[in-house]
């Protein structure tokens, strides 16, 4: 990435992180306000307020949505801070989990379930966090663009000998989609993924039989 592009990414990150803090403050006020309503409800006599149970149900719903909003802003905030240090040490397990949360909506629109498989140990490498997330997202998008129906995409980080790999595996699909998936490396967007992987000092390969995109990464990148 050139200097100007780096500055642009850092700018986007900084603004997004600032906005997530603001949204968090809004959520905090809603949470305390609904909490106060719950407190007042708890000290109100049953006879004095006949709609108590209905209010409790609604407050529970608000509470659930606050939690949902909170999870979203937490992940968005982490994502926004990704350009703060580059290269930086990252755990591929954590990156995969975060990508699942950030990209789930895109998968859901194609009836695809997105999941992260967890390697037993931490899989730590020094890399460019933004470009790594971009490579994972590009891999997911390539699969989503190609397939016609439902299925499951699983991100599998792993370490074998001296190789660090994230497998983007596709399963539970139809025979038609299996045929389509076997031509994955000839799709239009493959070249873009390969370029991202070159920037990361790695390669993108496919395992046709296993319906998997394999992202090979070096354990450390210096610049």
């Amino acid at each position, binding site marked *: 990435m050139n200097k100007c592009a780096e500055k642009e990414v850092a700018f986007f990150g900084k603004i997004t992180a600032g906005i*997530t803090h603001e949204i*968090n403050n809004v959520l905090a*006020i809603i949470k305390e306000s609904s909490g106060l309503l719950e*407190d*007042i409800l708890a000290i109100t006599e049953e006879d004095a307020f006949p709609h108590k149970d209905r209010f409790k149900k609604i407050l529970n719903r608000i509470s659930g949505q606050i939690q949902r909003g*909170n999870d979203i802003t937490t992940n968005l905030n982490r994502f926004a801070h990704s350009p703060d240090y580059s290269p930086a040490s990252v755990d591929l397990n954590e990156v995969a989990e975060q990508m699942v949360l950030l990209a789930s909506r895109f998968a859901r629109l194609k009836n695809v379930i997105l999941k992260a498989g967890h390697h037993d140990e931490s899989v730590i490498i020094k890399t460019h966090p933004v470009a790594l997330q971009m490579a994972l997202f590009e891999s997911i998008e390539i699969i989503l663009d190609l397939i016609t129906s439902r299925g499951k995409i699983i991100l599998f980080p792993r370490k074998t000998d001296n190789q660090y790999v994230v497998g983007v595996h596709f399963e539970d699909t139809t025979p038609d989609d299996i045929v389509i998936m076997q031509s994955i490396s000839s799709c239009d967007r493959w070249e873009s993924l390969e370029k991202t992987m070159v920037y990361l000092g790695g390669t993108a390969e496919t395992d046709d039989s296993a319906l998997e995109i394999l992202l090979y990464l070096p354990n450390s990148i210096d610049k």
Partner: protein
Amino acid sequence: MENLKILLVDDEEEFVTTLAERLELRGFQARAATNGEDGLHMIEADTPQIVILDVMMPGLGGLEVLKRIKAQNPQIHVILLTGRGSTKEGIEGMQLGAFDYLMKPINIEELIKKMQEAIKSQP
């Protein structure tokens, strides 16, 4: 724990006044300030046992307020409030003498538990 004097300092007025009201309902003596300067004046006028302090505030920032509290009243326990994913400021605050930190939005029961731990830790 009842009658414990607590000062809440956060620039989000609706957050801090609502949280103070909830703590009052639980028997605490809670007051609220919406900036660091007011918070320090309120400490001088009526010293609380615990200060709940937001890290990110305009003007006098939370960590600067923490330093001043600890310089004048080291016996006051300070619990910091940070944004989600901002553990850096929380850890920095603990190195400056804060008892602990919580991420916003907070859970009131968790906050009360933290306050109990802080009071028990008093020598």
